[in-house]
């Protein structure tokens, strides 16, 4: 099968025969059919996606979006590496954001310390909430997929409540907190909207790469993903491992939430963190990369390009930007249909 390249195949041949390459090409081709169907020129539309996202006007926006997408992708890739799916990213993200906003507004410390504290508070909130989902799985036998998802909705409701009552900006008609005090923000690069958040998320990606490739914990994580019965037999305790991975996952989602609050618009606005769909885009990127660290970074960048480029495609060709969301999903549909062929071979029938 094309999905198990031999060691002798050249790198170029391996790329061409990989299911990822196939899925991306197939999605782009189907997208072209959509574009022709709506009467647009596919080349012009895809050209607009690229120039709009990678040109000098768009690259800042792509990096800002990319920060959030990559952060969420890492958050979801880490449990996925061990075969766990965290569907509660939205809840963890929002709690991280509201915790960061609360600390940012009320901490008596000087601004730089408050900023750091707000980031840590956001990460802690996300981590604790994700750990709660893990406990539901470990202690009460509610599958993680379901527990993380069900917990996500009350978290969003809680944040929505806080921002409408105790933390609401007095006199504002919007459900939002007051603007954070002067200086309580992540430093931006020059006049762009790209902030230190990008550096923090990039550091997380490097850390994930190193842990995954070089440490015993990373090895256990990968092996659990490939064959959890084998690792259980070899003495990896599933419960504590799930708890740890989910805590890290939630912490990263919380980080994305706090970055979203500590950069423009410098406040928590109800719904603004979840509306762009970073959680789902991130999950898609993590799935596309099969949770491999480098692949997750590349896939996140690819999706950030699509998301930002979609806007300029809409401006120049009048094709709705939702098309890029369709492309994103089609990539994963193709990939999912082909992916399991390799997984099954390696894993046997663990999931059944």
């Amino acid at each position, binding site marked *: 099968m094309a999905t198990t390249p031999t060691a002798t195949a050249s790198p170029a041949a391996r790329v061409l025969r990989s299911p990822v390459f196939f899925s991306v090409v197939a999605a782009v081709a189907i997208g072209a059919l959509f574009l022709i169907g709506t009467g647009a020129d596919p080349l012009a539309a895809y050209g607009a996606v690229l120039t709009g996202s990678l040109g000098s006007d768009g690259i800042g926006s792509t990096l800002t979006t990319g920060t959030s997408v990559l952060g969420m992708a890492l958050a979801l890739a880490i449990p996925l590496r061990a075969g766990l799916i965290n569907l509660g990213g939205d809840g963890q993200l929002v709690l991280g954001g509201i915790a960061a906003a609360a600390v940012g507004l009320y901490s008596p410390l000087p601004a730089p310390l408050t900023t750091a504290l707000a980031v840590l508070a956001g990460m802690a909130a996300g981590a604790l909430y994700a750990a709660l989902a893990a406990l539901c799985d470990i202690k009460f036998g509610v599958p993680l997929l379901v527990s993380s*998802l069900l917990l996500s*909705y009350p978290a969003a*409701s809680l944040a929505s409540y806080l921002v409408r009552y105790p933390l609401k900006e007095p006199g504002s008609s919007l459900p939002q907190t007051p603007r954070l005090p002067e200086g309580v923000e992540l430093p931006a690069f020059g006049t762009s909207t790209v902030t230190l958040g990008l550096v923090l998320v990039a550091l997380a990606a490097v850390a994930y790469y190193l842990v995954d490739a070089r440490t015993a914990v990373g090895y256990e994580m990968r092996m659990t993903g490939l064959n959890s019965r084998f690792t259980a037999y070899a003495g990896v305790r599933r419960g504590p491992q799930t708890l740890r991975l989910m805590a890290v996952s939630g912490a990263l989602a919380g980080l994305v939430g706090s970055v979203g609050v500590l950069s423009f618009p410098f406040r928590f606005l109800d719904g603004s963190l979840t509306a762009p769909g970073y959680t789902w885009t991130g999950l898609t990127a993590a799935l596309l990369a099969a949770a491999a660290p480098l692949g997750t970074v590349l896939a996140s960048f690819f999706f950030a390009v699509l998301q930002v480029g979609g806007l300029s495609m809409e401006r120049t060709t009048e094709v*709705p930007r939702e098309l890029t969301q369709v492309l994103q*999903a089609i990539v994963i549909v193709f*990939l999912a*249909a*082909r992916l*399991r062929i390799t*997984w099954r071979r390696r894993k046997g029938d663990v999931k059944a």
Partner: protein
Amino acid sequence: MFFDSDLFLSALRALTPILLAALGGALCERAGVFNIGLEGMMLMGCFTAVATSWFTGSPWLGVLAAALAAAAYSLILAVGAVTLKGDAVVLGVAMNLLAVGLTSFLLRTVFGVQGTFDDPDLVGLPEIAGFSPLTWLSWAAVGVAAVLLSRHAWGLRLRGVGEAPDAAATLGVSPVKYKYGAVLASGVLCGLAGAQLALGNVTLFSENMTAGRGWIAVVAVMLGRALPLGVLLAALLFGLAEAAGFRLQGLGLPQQATDAAPYVVTLIALFLTTAKRRRKTGAVA
């Protein structure tokens, strides 16, 4: 009176889409296909129902088209998970995302609006004796599914395919055929669920209007252990929690607390039932 008949009636209305989708999920579960694409199939049903009703003027054609469109959409899962042996969870997640993108894209290209399509000329479903015809249908479907799964040869074979596909194959029962049947049936049921949501509960289409109901149906399948009556009870629990939430809102509780209530109630119900099952079997799940 807090728990009066009005509360019960509004719970019954809220529960129809969830019940229909969950029945589809239960059939898939019984056939050994984990279907978490219910949400996406339902959303495709919502859009098709509204578009068809709008262009033909007939909500009935809308219902029919929704069932067919969602069944066609469910083929992604059937081909991907059954024929190609792909990962059903990943496929389901992708189908849900694809449905959101596709319906939003179509909303803009077909109707030229963003967010919500809402027009006084859009014809919704009439009511029969106080309920939408699809509500009546959903109750009938519970009975039919229960009898089918416990008494009829089809249902017994379907369960056999789910529990021991190799044994079923040796007896001449094609697992592929039954799995396709279950997935397509879930597509039809989700299409009806979508039609009920968009032409029954309300008369409009808005982006991502299923808002997690398909996921709740997935949970209802789990809570009801893929038994039609169990699924009905699970969906009813969720519907009651939602309706009670609206009632509590009237008593001054913030809307956010009542929004969260159904999810918390469902999670607690899952705790209780899994704990009970563990005690009974003595197994660590």
